[in-house]
């Protein structure tokens, strides 16, 4: 079968009680791809992303990472390979920046403390926050928190990085910092999925755009196709409003 498919999703459904949010999503993500998920609010794009690493347990459907079906039994191991960055950063409040970075690699016995700290310092230095290593998240700005959160996800060297509206809770100045860090990861060949409302960033960074409406993928294509020659009326209408 396909050699370098990182992620494959078949007929994914998700309901919250009677509310059907995802209505059969089929999707594939290949290594090195950068997919931006767009759609109106309430379309299910965040839920889609959150189902991939079972932050929300799918109601039905199949998710494969490197050909392995994600189940309740192996989801913990699979999550190590799927990094996630949240809208509200979710740095662990009672741990310092350093401990936020080294907690998972150490607890999962992937690294010894010294090695984890060394790597954490390198990454913090890279994003210019080495002096914050011993600070608690409360003392960081939003942009700093999000960059630490991205670096925290990178500590586990995931195969795929999921971004759930990573800049929606940030001020304009911080948005730039966070986007340039994501851009840098992209340039280094990281496989990425992003749910975002930053259209120009989507256009710039995506290798593929996926448009979700009412819990289904209704259009996908390269940014050029998508933004210049939308096929469906729904996307035309959406683009008219947001551009």
């Amino acid at each position, binding site marked *: 079968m396909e050699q370098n498919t990182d992620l494959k999703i078949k007929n994914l459904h998700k309901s919250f009680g009677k509310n059907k949010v995802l209505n059969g999503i089929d999707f594939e993500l290949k290594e090195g791809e950068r997919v931006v998920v767009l759609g109106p609010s309430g379309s299910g794009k965040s839920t889609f992303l959150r189902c991939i690493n079972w*932050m929300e347990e799918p109601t039905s459907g199949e998710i494969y990472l490197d050909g392995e079906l994600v189940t309740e039994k192996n989801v*913990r191991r699979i999550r190590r390979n*799927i990094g996630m960055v*949240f809208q509200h950063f*979710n740095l*662990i409040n009672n*741990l310092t920046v350093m401990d936020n970075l080294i*907690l998972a690699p150490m607890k999962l016995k992937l690294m010894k403390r010294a090695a984890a700290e060394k790597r954490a310092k390198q990454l913090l230095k890279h994003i210019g926050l080495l002096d914050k290593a011993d600070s*608690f*998240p409360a003392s960081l700005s939003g942009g700093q928190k999000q960059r630490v959160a991205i670096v925290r996800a990178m500590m586990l060297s995931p195969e795929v990085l999921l971004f759930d509206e990573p800049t929606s809770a940030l001020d304009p100045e911080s948005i730039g910092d966070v986007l340039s860090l994501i851009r840098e990861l992209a340039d280094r060949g990281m496989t990425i999925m992003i749910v975002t409302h930053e259209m120009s960033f989507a256009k710039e960074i995506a290798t593929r755009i996926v448009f979700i409406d009412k819990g289904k993928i209704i259009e996908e294509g390269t940014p050029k196709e998508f933004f210049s020659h939308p096929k469906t009326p729904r996307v035309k209408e959406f683009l008219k409003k947001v551009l």
Partner: protein
Amino acid sequence: MNDFFSKIGELFSTSSYIDSLLHGFLLTMQIAYFAILIGVFLGTIIALIDTAKPSKWLAIPKFICKVYTTIIRGTPMALQLFIMFFVIFAIKGFPSIITAILAFGLNSAAYTAEVIRGGILSVDKGQTEAGLALGLSRYTIFMKIVAPQAIKNIIPALGNEIITVIKETAIVSMVGMYDLNMAAKDIGSGQNMASYLVPMVVAALFYLATIYLITFIVQRVEKSLRKSDLRAEK
């Protein structure tokens, strides 16, 4: 007024009165101490079951916990004490202090469970999600992330519960136990001082001093827990 001070003099100079007060105080403290231990232990278990992710294994324990807290919180403490004394442990020669400790411990557990549950639920869901996304186990997430944050919210309310238990033990005098409250009544009775005012004021001061001390300790603990927040603001 003169009479009041002479009565105080009489109370503190009569060793049998002092003995009675201290004995009563000791019993009050013993009941409260062990009841609080039981309450915190059992309350923690109930809260953990209650806040755990629903699963078929936990459905029945969760239901039992709900029924338990509903019954305990929905009926008077004094009635629960009577049921323990006159129904469940109506065994000749069974030590009444144990019955009392169990009655207050089982009661306090329901309230403590609510306090702990509230503390756990007050921790932002995103904190747990961060741990899950990193592949951590639920146990690690609880021990390293949720519990340390929940404790900050639990301590003040738990202090309140401790104070409530200490004061509420005074109703053991209703089943004839000689606690601080009962001692005050006994000393003031006709066969002894024949005046209730002074022994009751003194008993009140005993309670007050104890609770003041506990409030002080709880505040110190709170402060030291908040230090990590202060460090964070630097």
